[in-house]
């Protein structure tokens, strides 16, 4: 059952990711992005990272993609159908894709990794639960949390700054 779920989620994730790249329409792309994100969240569940799965759904599907959709509606761009990608760019992209694929396959074929599959964990050995997150984030990782706070602050300020309509500041001096 779990195996089936894994393959189902994997197919879902990859397929919808592919559709994000392939779909002409930005709205469709965003929709498929939601599916991708949900698929990844599902995989998180399989990996026992329930909290991250919830976070992924909340932040990505709930906020990020909605933001995307919002912007797409707002901009109402004509779509990119008119401009076809050039042969060169397609070729380059395919080459890059093949290279990456090759890389992925080659390191998966490495002897060290094949063994790791044995390191199966049937129960949940690491406390990937909320309490453990709390402990870690507010003790060992307190400094990065503080920095992240500043990061969010400047991101917020930046968004307000950039998206304000041209309400000109009074010139002093």
């Amino acid at each position, binding site marked *: 059952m779990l*195996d089936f779920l*894994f*393959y189902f989620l*994997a197919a879902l*994730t*990859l397929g919808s*990711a*592919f559709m*994000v*790249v392939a779909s002409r329409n*930005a709205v469709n*792309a965003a929709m498929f*992005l939601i599916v991708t*994100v949900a698929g990844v969240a599902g*995989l998180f569940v*399989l*990996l026992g*990272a329930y*909290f*991250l799965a919830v*976070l992924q759904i909340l*932040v990505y599907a709930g906020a990020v993609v909605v*933001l*995307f959709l919002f*912007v797409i509606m707002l901009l109402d*761009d004509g*779509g*990119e159908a008119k*401009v076809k*990608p050039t042969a060169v760019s*397609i070729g380059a992209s*395919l080459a*890059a*894709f093949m290279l*990456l*694929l090759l890389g*992925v396959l080659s390191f*998966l074929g490495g002897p060290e*990794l094949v063994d790791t*599959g*044995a*390191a*199966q*964990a049937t129960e949940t050995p*690491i*406390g990937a639960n909320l309490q*453990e*997150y709390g402990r*870690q*984030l507010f003790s060992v*990782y307190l400094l*990065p949390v503080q920095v*992240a706070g500043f*990061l969010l602050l400047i*991101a*917020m300020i*930046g*968004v307000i700054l*950039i*998206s304000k309509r041209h309400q000109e500041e009074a010139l002093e001096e």
Partner: protein
Amino acid sequence: MTVGLNEFLAISGLLFAIGFTGVLLRRNTLVIYMCLEIMLSAAILALVGFSRFNNTMDGNIFVFFIITVAAAEVAVGLAIIVALFRHRQTIQVEDLNTLKN
């Protein structure tokens, strides 16, 4: 389940590759941005997978930070795209050609 780390890594690698290809291939900046998010998701998936099979918590915590940052990045990025659209009425990459020699 019989599915091991390798399978998760394969998914992650493929996801990364798809995202990367999208960044190179697409012309719509919004879609490019979505592809970047796919790449990030791929990295996250790899981290969570490793974290699970290596039995260490660090990877999970790292993912927490990554999601936080990604959200902030998207907000800033979309703000820039919207602001640019106001001036240019376009979000296609090839129209962004004011900067040149």
